């Protein structure tokens, strides 16, 4: 029994203690001083699921839902559990072949592993859902998941309601802290976009525990830390959906737009941009395909909102303003008269005019006499009150600005265009310091460089109806549950024009009523209602080629107590009285009397709806599109669309996008006044003179 080694038991005990201390040290390091492990464990184990609330519904002024939600179904598959599936039957039901099936499954496994559920076919049609639902027992591993999608029960209002799109990286960058994630949908255009914050509601978060293969194991702490989803707020709009329907019907086969405003509130009653499309066209599983087709390959540009996304010369409808300003500035009075022998010769070169005779303001408005307003406009600019024409024009522009022209009105739709009210500075740069009123005489009749959007024009009508004030035109009157973000505040502010006395307004009203009774708008009379209106016919050219005139009509009714102010324009429709004016009259009747009465009026609706005013150059482009060459382009672009996921740009970008497609004709929209304006304005004076020989009739 050797005891001489007994001290070694101490050494052994020291070794034990040493190792114990080393282990404890590492435990302290791991458990007390490294927070990264806790984070790593959470990253491992928590699956954060976003619960999407229903988006808000948009109602019209009579509480009819014009943009609602419906349930659609996605076919979802967990590839690892889908081994026993009756592939042949499934492929037959989905109208795909087995090669496609295999490829899709392979792609899904590659993207999302084989143990997690992935969407095999999104947004099934109701028929397909019914067929699949009956046969689901044959497809283990597949399931039908419901999801909320947008639907448009009245099939109208595509341009104003807008559509949803999947978020892209650019959107995520711009909206960093708003909780969007890849794969989310957001309101891309129209009201969906403007009121996105309100409509989207509040997303809910559910926390799940997942295992090492990513399968969910159940909720974390029985959902104690989950947040519930809050549905989006409903919006009440000022739209009258029946009026909107009638407007879209009347604008069939035409290019143009309608804006009707309730002058008392600024609420937009209907807003039609033609050609349009059925908004439900962009909700199904063919959404992307349809969008690409409309965005890049339809020369009619159905995605363009022509009510405020483009601007035109307002034509003779602008004369009302010239008259008001002239009277208010004191350069004319109700006795001032101009006689016209068929053209205005005051500037040397004759400016044509159809109405002959001697006019004071009222009949000048009614008959739309060019000479009268040319003379008035010159008097305004040459007014001795102002030191020079620059300041006179500035004063004129101040009126225009106060009428909501030359600036963004602030309508609750994206991509509103400003239009153009040319400044003295601009003319000085072209004509030099001593420019003459004759240089810009075309402006007097709403041509030349003046450009307005149709919404601005409708707003001018509302201002005239109100005799000097307006609320910014808007579509949404109220938000359910209160306007949390102050989105509607700017529509509660009453804007006033420059101080203009009552008799000026009366004078103009009288003239506009005359338009309907014996003037250019005679054919657009509404039985039993005193309508005040003004026609407009605008010359335009496309690439130097003169086209048929644009038809304009602006009106409000009834004169005594205006309830509707309306502006209608039909591109290349010719004389304003045959298309734009009757359309406006029917809409006024519909709105004020709630229905169209009388057989001849009803026949008029059908006659106008059937009238085809698609401009010939657009028809040509459409024919071209249908040709084989376009078909090839389509195939190529479809491929491009598949490759680039984010095809959904706002319609304002459509212009540039479509222009970049090689071999494609310039879109129709370029044929509007804007194109000629820029060209004309930059020409030297001599050329401009020959070019600006415009004839405006009506």
């Amino acid at each position, binding site marked *: 029994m050797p005891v001489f080694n007994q001290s070694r038991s101490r050494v052994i005990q020291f070794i*034990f203690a040493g190792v114990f201390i080393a282990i404890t040290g*590492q435990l302290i390091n791991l458990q007390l001083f490294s927070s*990264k492990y806790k984070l790593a464990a959470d990253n*491992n184990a928590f699956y954060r699921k976003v619960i999407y609330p229903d988006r808000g519904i948009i109602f019209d002024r009579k509480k009819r839902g014009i943009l609602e939600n419906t349930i659609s179904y996605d076919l979802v598959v967990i590839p690892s559990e889908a081994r026993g599936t009756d592939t042949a039957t499934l492929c037959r039901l989905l109208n795909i072949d087995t090669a496609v099936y295999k490829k899709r499954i392979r792609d899904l496994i590659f993207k999302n592993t084989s143990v997690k559920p992935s969407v095999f076919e999104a947004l099934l049609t109701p028929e397909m859902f019914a067929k699949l639902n009956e046969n689901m027992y044959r497809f283990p591993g597949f399931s039908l998941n419901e999801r909320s999608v947008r639907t448009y029960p009245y099939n109208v209002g595509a341009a104003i309601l807008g559509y949803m799109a999947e978020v892209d990286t650019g959107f995520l960058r711009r909206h960093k802290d708003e909780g969007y994630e890849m794969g989310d949908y957001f309101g891309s255009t129209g009201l969906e976009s403007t009121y996105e914050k309100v409509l989207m509601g509040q997303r809910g978060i559910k926390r799940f*525990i997942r295992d090492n293969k990513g399968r969910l194991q159940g909720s974390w702490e029985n959902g104690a830390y989950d947040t519930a989803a809050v549905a989006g707020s409903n919006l009440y709009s000022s739209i009258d959906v029946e009026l909107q329907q009638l407007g879209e019907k009347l604008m069939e086969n035409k290019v143009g737009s309608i804006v009707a405003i309730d002058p008392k509130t600024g609420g937009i009653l209907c807003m039609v941009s033609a050609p349009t499309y059925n908004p439900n066209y962009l909700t199904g599983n063919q959404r992307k395909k349809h969008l690409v087709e409309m965005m890049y390959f339809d020369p009619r540009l159905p995605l363009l909102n022509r009510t405020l996304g483009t601007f035109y010369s307002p034509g003779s409808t602008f004369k009302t303003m010239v008259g008001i300003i002239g009277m208010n500035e004191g350069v004319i009075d109700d006795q001032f008269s101009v006689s016209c022998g068929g053209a205005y010769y005051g500037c040397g070169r004759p400016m044509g005019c159809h109405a002959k005779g001697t006019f004071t303001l009222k009949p000048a408005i009614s008959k739309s006499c060019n000479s009268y307003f040319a003379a008035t406009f010159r008097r305004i600019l040459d007014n001795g009150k102002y030191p020079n024409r620059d300041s006179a024009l500035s004063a004129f522009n101040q009126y225009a600005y106060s009428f909501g022209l030359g600036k963004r009105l602030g309508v609750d739709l994206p991509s509103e265009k400003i239009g153009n009210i040319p400044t003295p500075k601009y003319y000085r740069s072209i004509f030099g310091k001593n420019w003459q009123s004759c240089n810009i005489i075309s402006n007097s009749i709403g041509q030349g460089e003046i450009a307005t959007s149709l919404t601005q024009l409708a707003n001018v009508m509302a201002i005239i109806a109100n005799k000097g004030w307006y609320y910014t035109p808007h579509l949404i009157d109220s938000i359910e549950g209160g306007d949390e973000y102050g989105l509607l505040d700017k529509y509660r502010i009453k804007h006033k024009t420059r101080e203009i006395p009552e008799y000026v307004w009366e004078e103009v009203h009288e003239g506009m009523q005359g338009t309907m009774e014996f003037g250019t708008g005679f054919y657009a009379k509404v039985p039993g209602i005193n309508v005040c209106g003004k026609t407009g016919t605008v010359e335009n050219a496309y690439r130097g080629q003169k086209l048929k005139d644009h038809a304009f009509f602006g009106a409000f009714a009834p004169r005594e107590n205006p309830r509707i102010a309306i502006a209608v324009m039909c591109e290349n429709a010719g004389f304003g009285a045959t298309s734009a004016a009757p359309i406006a009259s029917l809409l006024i009747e519909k709105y004020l009397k709630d229905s169209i009465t009388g057989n001849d009026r009803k026949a008029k609706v059908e006659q106008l709806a059937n009238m085809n005013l698609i401009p010939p150059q657009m028809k040509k482009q459409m024919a071209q599109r249908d040709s084989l060459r376009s078909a090839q382009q389509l195939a190529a672009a479809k491929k491009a669309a598949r490759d680039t996921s984010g095809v959904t740009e706002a319609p304002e970008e459509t212009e540039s996008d479509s222009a970049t497609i090689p071999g494609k004709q310039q879109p129709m929209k370029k044929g509007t006044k804007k194109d000629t304006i820029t060209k004309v304005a930059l020409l030297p004076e001599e050329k401009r003179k020959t070019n600006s020989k415009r004839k405006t009739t009506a």
Partner: protein
Amino acid sequence: MNKRNHQIATQGVDYLVIWLYAILVAIGILCIFMVEYRPGADWFTTFLNGKTNYSKQLIFAGVCAIAATFILLTDSKLFTAFANLFYLFGILLMLATFVIGKNINGSRSWIPLVGGFNLQPAELCKIFAALALAKFLSRQEVDFTKIRSQLIAGAITLSPAVLSILQHELGLALVYTSFLIAMYREGLPAQILIIGSSFGVLVIATLILEPNILAIILTVIAALVIFLLRKQIKKKKKLLTVIITIWLICVGVQRFVVPYIFNNVLECYQSTRIYSMVGKEYNCADNKKAQDKSNTNKPVRKPDDYNVRQSKIAIGSGGFFGRGFLKGTQTRGKYVPEQHTDFIFTSLGEAFGFVGCFIFLLIYLFLLYRIVRIAERQRSTFSRVYAYSVVSILFFHIAVNVSMTIGLFPIVGIPLPLISYGGSSLLTFTVLIFIMLRLDADRQMVLR
């Protein structure tokens, strides 16, 4: 006689160790329960139905209790008498695995038994090796200071280790090195341990430092030693040659031996594990065996340190007080591989945090110290050597297992004593401990 036998069976048994043993086994079953538990399951019935691992472990514990009682009722002379025979039997069993062995998890070291249970002879062989070592060292004619007896003792312990390596059970083989502690207590020269640990330090330094920097450091140390000992060297020229020889060996080891071992001896995954322990990446393209494989098969597959990473995450996420019983997300999500066996410590660390781990390790430490005390109070060399063998084996298992889960040691597949799931392991440690208790109970009566 019967009455006396009964007194012998119960008298002098160290109940403290039995209590510690019972506590640890209970903790073990609890830990396995934490790993296996799924919410919604009725824990009571699953505990009894024998289908889940914790239920099976409960059955193993019952079997072990019977075995322990049986051992306590035997005569301690049995173990001394049959020590060599047992050892021979164990070696034969291990050899038998090469013939009738069953392949589980890539190592052909299991013998199938009735009822779906499998026996791993390498586990049992620890007991037999401990008994045989004790038997050898307790022989009167053995003088452990002689090299010859040291070599024989080494051969007794290393034979099962070599067989284990042949079975691809590196972890079990390493366990046999723990007998060095017992032998050290019996007089193995300390130099062997010192040289061994110096080699270990040199290997780790080679892994961490750049080869040239390490060579410079070694040279500087050698020069420093020569400078300090310059007076002694003047007296004894031989000292200089010794120092230079040591320096040459060190540089040789770090330059050639270590890379050779990692690239040619060890498998790619083993090298990777050792490198990852010191936070480095091992390039498997350098590995000879991996190259051989890649010539015939696919490009070199790079094993990663997923196990250690997840294990460290589990323990680290426990924090100070832990996530709570059954609330560990790493455990619930099955992120840690082999969590019910080799990585059982992670479930404890995650659920009960630093406090739980510390208390748990204290229980272990207490058990180890208790056994050392028991060993020191033995009168017979056999009992003392055996008790030291037991404590060495336990210590080695605990230290290596816990260290590997917290990233202090490369991963080798050895279980945590009395905690990890597994019948063989539990039975082995039960028998080891209870034989020791039986011997301890008889310490007053038997003088050998």
